[in-house]
């Protein structure tokens, strides 16, 4: 949805909206010029609460009204299911504005190359799409623009939208000169996209034997001043709000709302962590009401491969949630949770919590395709090209590994050319935990194309088309002939003028979106379970997390080190979301503009993390692999909340669970006063 100006003209909708662009020879001159700009603002009443923004008398952020997107979905017979239920649990849950806080802020350079094209080198997640955005905004043909995305110092979805790219290109277009734009930390915090703050109301019905019967859900996501990727984020919220369970009846009303808050868009989990916080709290409360083990209850309801899910979609990909739950149940942290543990002080309480998560990877029912190029060199090396971006997740290494595996060459012989619109074909966006899947599959197609090219070669040389080509450590084996080393193959292809390069294109299988949605359902899902141990200080509200177990349906793990690193990082980011990342906003102004007021977990806050892959086999994935980039974060916050409930008997409903919020919750529940009265736990 293109509702966001590159530079505002007569209306500014949030504090990060750009109104002018200054280019100067030095930072000091630029700073002085900015000081001299006079903008006359006529203050409008701020719209800051998404619930109030939906009321008809609210001031409007955009002409068309504050409800950016609304959809209502009904499946099964919700009323009848509630009427037949033995247990009904109801709650309102809120989650906060999480900031990506990547190490490298939005940054880039631009210049004119020798052919007069504008080259933009900037942090991003999709060079081809960024190029299209620049071309559209500046009304230039895409061929006049080249976008290169070098190694990016973290993105987490925060570079899925354009940031500095158009501004850089604009300066170079206007001046013909090179430009550089690096946002300061404060500028990044204020102007960058965020995770959608959410208000979620949920009513969930279950039977006495623990079957989840129906879910009634209202989802309100605050997208801030502009839609950005909000409409798609809302779809992901809808798709995952029932958790990885067989629930036949659901009523879902979802709203994406404009406010004058900061723009919300993609952030690892893409709308799923908020609804899963709500749902997994609900499921835990149901288990407690029924006196059931929370993992058992989840296992009873866990969706299996081949099941029809709530939207009428059949789960055809690998579905490992049941196995994940079983692995979590067997883990010592869970098995021994009833064993008394000596705590250092009488005001500490220990608890163990569990939560499950799911999210589709790839972009669901939207058209999704990607291409990868493959070229053989006479020296025996192989060059793989694709526009996937390296945002710290290790995709370049994984793609090199896949190519090495497919062609049976040592990985050192594979060179990867990535994320350059001039040199790498469009492998689409690096988001939604999909590049190993997408690029890996495109690479498989490229290797198939290479086999065909080899057949062309032999046909050209001998007049007879061979019937089979396979790749071995010694080289390509054509029919049953001697293996031909890849370098020799490259020379012979060159000699026959056939070209040494091929392109493989993979189109992600998809189904038609269900009415009222954009991209539901996905065909491929990630699943995971988090078990968290917490220690709560009743006298301060501080929650520490000594240990987390993250069980992940990983498909087949391509690179164990990258896999573990991804999951550990996601757990820690989830812990930040759960406990401390608290963007304080007043009248649309961000009060926490730096990393001393907006706190993210430090090494001292990071728990011991056991990452346990449950290796299912994804038939559609390369070598059985599936996406894993986001799965680790999905169920961290509800697992921690459920652990707090286990420790203290209170029910957290609001993320982040900061010490102050937890303290008041404990105080209201009488836990603090009970301790002060000296009632328990004294040694």
């Amino acid at each position, binding site marked *: 949805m293109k509702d966001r100006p590159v530079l505002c003209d007569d209306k500014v909708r949030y504090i990060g909206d750009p109104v002018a662009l200054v280019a100067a020879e030095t930072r000091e001159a630029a700073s002085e010029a900015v000081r001299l700009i006079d903008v006359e603002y006529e203050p409008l009443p701020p719209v800051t609460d998404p619930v109030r923004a939906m009321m008809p008398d609210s001031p409007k952020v955009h002409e068309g009204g504050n409800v950016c997107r609304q959809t209502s979905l009904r499946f099964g017979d919700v009323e009848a299911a509630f009427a037949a239920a033995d247990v009904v649990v109801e709650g309102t849950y809120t989650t906060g504005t999480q900031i990506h806080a990547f190490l490298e802020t939005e940054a880039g350079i631009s210049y004119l190359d020798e052919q007069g094209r504008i080259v933009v080198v900037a942090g991003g997640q999709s060079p081809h799409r960024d190029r299209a955005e620049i071309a559209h905004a500046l009304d230039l043909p895409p061929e006049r623009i080249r976008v290169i995305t070098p190694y990016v110092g973290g993105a987490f979805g925060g570079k899925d939208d354009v940031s500095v790219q158009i501004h850089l290109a604009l300066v170079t277009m206007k001046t013909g000169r090179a430009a550089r734009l690096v946002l300061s930390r404060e500028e990044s915090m204020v102007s960058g996209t965020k995770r959608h703050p959410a208000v979620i109301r949920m009513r969930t019905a279950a039977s006495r034997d623990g079957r989840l019967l129906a879910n009634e859900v209202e989802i309100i996501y605050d997208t801030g001043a502009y839609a950005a990727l909000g409409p798609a984020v809302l779809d992901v919220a809808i798709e995952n709000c029932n958790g990885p369970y067989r629930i036949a009846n659901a009523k879902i009303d979802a709203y994406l709302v404009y406010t004058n808050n900061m723009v919300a868009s993609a952030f690892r989990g893409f709308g799923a962590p908020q609804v899963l916080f709500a749902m997994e709290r609900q499921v835990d409360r149901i288990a407690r009401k029924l006196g059931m083990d929370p993992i058992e209850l989840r296992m009873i309801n866990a969706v299996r491969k081949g099941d029809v899910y709530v939207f009428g979609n059949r789960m055809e990909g690998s579905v490992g949630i049941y196995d994940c739950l079983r692995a979590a149940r067997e883990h010592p942290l869970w098995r021994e949770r009833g064993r008394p543990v000596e705590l250092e002080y009488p005001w500490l309480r220990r608890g163990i919590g569990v939560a499950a998560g799911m999210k589709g990877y790839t972009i669901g029912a939207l058209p999704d395709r990607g291409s990868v190029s493959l070229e053989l060199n006479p020296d025996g090396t192989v060059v793989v090209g694709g526009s996937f971006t390296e945002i710290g997740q290790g995709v370049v290494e994984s793609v090199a590994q896949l190519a090495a595996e497919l062609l049976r060459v040592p990985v050192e012989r594979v060179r990867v050319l990535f994320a350059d619109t001039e040199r790498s074909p469009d492998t689409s966006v690096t988001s939604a935990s999909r590049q190993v899947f997408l690029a890996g599959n495109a690479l498989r197609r490229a290797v198939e194309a290479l086999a065909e090219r080899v057949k062309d070669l032999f046909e050209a040389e001998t007049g007879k088309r061979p019937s089979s080509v396979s790749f071995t450590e010694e080289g390509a084996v054509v029919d049953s002939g001697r293996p031909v080393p890849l370098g020799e193959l490259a020379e012979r292809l060159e000699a026959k003028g056939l070209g040494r390069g091929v392109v493989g294109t993979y189109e992600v299988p998809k189904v038609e979106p269900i009415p009222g949605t954009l991209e539901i359902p996905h065909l491929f899902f990630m699943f995971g379970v988090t078990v968290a141990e917490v220690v709560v200080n009743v006298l*301060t509200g501080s929650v520490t997390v000594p240990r987390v177990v993250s069980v992940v349906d990983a498909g087949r793990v391509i690179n164990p080190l990258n896999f573990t690193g991804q999951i550990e990082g996601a757990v820690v980011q989830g812990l930040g979301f759960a406990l401390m990342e608290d963007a304080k906003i007043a009248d649309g102004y961000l009060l926490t503009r730096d990393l001393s007021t907006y*706190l993210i977990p*430090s090494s001292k806050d990071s728990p011991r993390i056991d990452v346990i892959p449950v290796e299912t086999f994804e038939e559609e994935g390369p070598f059985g692999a599936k996406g894993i980039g986001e799965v680790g974060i999905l169920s961290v916050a509800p697992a921690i909340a459920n652990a707090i409930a286990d420790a203290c008997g209170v029910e957290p409903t609001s993320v982040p669970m900061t010490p*102050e919020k937890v303290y*008041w919750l404990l105080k209201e529940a009488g836990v603090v006063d009970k301790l002060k009265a000296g009632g328990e736990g004294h040694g």
Partner: protein
Amino acid sequence: MEVLLHDVDVLVPRDLDEALRVLAERRGIKVLAGGTDLLVQMRSGAVQKSDLLDVSGLWELKYVRHEDETIAIGALTTFSEIASSEVIRRHAPVLAEAAETVGSVQIMNKGTIGGNVVNASPAADSLPALYVHDAELKLASLKGTRTVGITEFYRGYKRLDMRPDELLVEVRLRAEKGGEVGHFFKHGLRQGDAISVVNGAVLLDLEGDLVRGAAIALGAVAPTVVRAHEAERALKGRRLREDVMWEAARAVLRSISPIDDVRGSAAYRRELSVNYVFMTLWRIAREVGVL
């Protein structure tokens, strides 16, 4: 918007005398020690940009000395040096504990005790320890040297008994006596380095479970660090039991006047002040084996 500091003059004195001469002659110049507060504040515009006198190279102001009953700490001693000083760990362990939690290793390596004192943040982590140790501050200028008690030094929020031509050169503490035992406490919003929402120090003089003397100081709950005299009185002459601890802890409310800010509400700070003083008293009681 970020204030650029490219046009700031930085003067580097050869020795203390030259530093004092510059301070006497160049009005409006600010003293740069570790810079961990000052540069952040100048960059954000919270402190008016000015020329800087960089004293960080004055090695003669980096020391820890044990002089009879007193610990003398050169103003430019860093928190890393304080935290690892044998003298401080033995004779003022409350200060060593505070120094260890001031911030990240990088901040501890740069930040100095003199800077922490003069920056006068009510949340400064070293100050409660200095209050319970009855610290005195030695201020030097071309006119001579004078010594001010820490409670008299702070006259209000960031208002100091200090002339522009003066330089803080030494912090002097009373060494812990036999029978004294204490702790620093700090509430941050995460486990790693964080600015204190509430901090404080408790130093008790005990004979068995009998409290002969008590010093309690709290930070971030008033315009300056405060001594909780009511709480101290509630302890003196009493036996260290849980009911007495709670009574004393609740008495701190009469000494504090916290405000709401981005890190926490006033109401939460009041609760924390009471609870932390209790927790600290309880820890001390357990450590000395009277609980």
